[in-house]
């Protein structure tokens, strides 16, 4: 096995196992941890998570592909997720996305060639009072207009 967690992450794994009556319940949590550690979840990481949780690799694969937050490809240093659901849509989410695509020169689902930013669209992020809004890494940003978007992009290195 060529991938493995660092020892600090392995301690985390043990702590996660203790929360549940069985190891399988930890699959989603370990995929989150793996994404934090490795940036994305490739086939080797998938197999590694299966081994740790003692489930068949196909089980991990099904889980991985079911959930929207897991990345199976390397992503940019920053991840921008534009909300496209109804409250944001009513407040101009389409223009937000168009502006970002134009400014970054990429379409939703792509990463800038310099590896700086990955752009995605997502469904309601539970921050509709900020509409139109987006998530930038851990943070919610909104209400957005072109000026606000410029300011946010400015800060992303």
């Amino acid at each position, binding site marked *: 096995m060529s991938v493995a967690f660092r020892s600090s992450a392995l301690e985390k794994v043990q702590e996660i196992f203790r*929360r*549940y*009556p*069985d190891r*399988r*319940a*930890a*699959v*989603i*949590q370990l*995929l*989150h941890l793996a994404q934090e550690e490795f940036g994305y979840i490739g086939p080797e990481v998938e197999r590694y998570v299966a081994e740790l*949780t003692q*489930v068949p690799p196909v*089980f991990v694969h*099904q*889980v991985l592909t*079911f*959930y*929207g*937050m*897991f990345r199976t490809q390397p992503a940019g240093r920053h991840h921008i*997720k534009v909300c*496209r*659901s*109804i*409250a944001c*849509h*009513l*407040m101009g989410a389409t223009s937000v996305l168009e502006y970002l695509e134009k400014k970054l020169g990429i379409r939703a689902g792509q990463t800038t060639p310099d590896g700086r930013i990955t752009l995605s669209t*997502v*469904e*309601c*992020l*539970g*921050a*509709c*009072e900020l*509409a139109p809004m987006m*998530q930038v890494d*851990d*943070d919610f940003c909104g209400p957005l207009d072109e000026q606000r978007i410029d300011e946010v992009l400015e800060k992303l290195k």
Partner: protein
Amino acid sequence: MPQVKIITQLFGVEDSHRLPVYERHGGYQAIRKVLSGMSPEAVIEEVKKSRLRGLGGAGFPTGLKWSFVPKDSQRPKYVVVNADEGEPGTFKDRYIMMNVPHNLLEGIMIAAYAIGAHTAYIYLRGEYVHPRRRLEQAIAEAYAKGYLGENIFGLGYKLDVYIHVGAGAYICGEETALLESLEGKKGWPRLKPPFPATVGAFGCPTVVNNVETLSYVPHIIQRGAEWFASLGTERSGGARILSVSGHVRRPGIYEVTMSTTLREVIYEHAGGIREGRALKAVIPGGSSSPVLRAEEVDVACCFDALASIGSMAGSGGVIVMDETTCMFDALHNIVQFYAHESCGQCTPCRVGTGWLKRIMDRIGEGRGVPEDVDNLRAIAADMLGRTICPLGDAAAMPVMSFVDKFREEFEQHVREGRCSLRQTVREAVS
């Protein structure tokens, strides 16, 4: 009725998310009262009398739900908190977890004691990174004080609370999909019965409650079921926190009594419609609830009043649309959402949401045919009540209500192959 401050009472107080601040304002008194003198049955009775109903969407009476958990079972029991908050238009649970995470923890403790659970999981949507940090800090503070763990408050009850992080799937807000996801699987809803009260997490008796529902419980114990019930309406006790979004001047959360009308919420609390425009329509309870016309907003926001006019109080996500809104375009967005989020497990929902989307796409591209409007309605009607979980209904109901109430706009889109409303608005602006 005016706004009330129950769960929101500490919002805005400095460090309201820290244990000492919560405690200084009367926090953790209700759980002490429960552990030092109330039987589990008495707690359940009190919650029943308060007429507290599930605020995650379905409005099921909370005390009654707790009473379904078998008392004689030797298996472990679980409290599972639904903090998945994915219904478009809903964001109140995020405010609760950011501002008063200890209020939620106290509610969890009381629920656990009432049903005899010694483990609770908070199923938190993965995108809520900051709420997660707040909860982690609150849980650590509670363990450090002995408010969680082997012998909570030194009063002889054991309780552990864990956070389980979701990974971006709306369907996992549905309680049985949530339990599947808690068990580490993909979130495919289960057939009911059995209900979670008997077969829930890891095959054991489980109560699944929304963040806000549980957060009202300590206040009910502290101030009495009568007080809470009397704030509300005949069958919906107390208050709730509405999430108001869309074309209002002050989008945000508003905690109001159940008898408060949507008109008051929109025009007084949320400041009315932006730029002095006219109201056109309101979705009162998250995107799955049937839409209301402007003239229907003199209705209380409680479960029964909204049901009596053919809509739903749902998650309390009030989405406001002004006169510039194209109803075809709004529904198109909602239909795309459900088509994207259907888990695909049952045919009427998987195929139905796909058809609805394709027809809406086609109309949007100017290639609609006259039968399309009736077909949209018929496909939606066919989905109703024929699916494993309520997502099928949630996708169908908006379609039926939008088409019934704004039919002319849909016909016009088909006839003219474009949106005349947007055209007019654009001309008026330029």
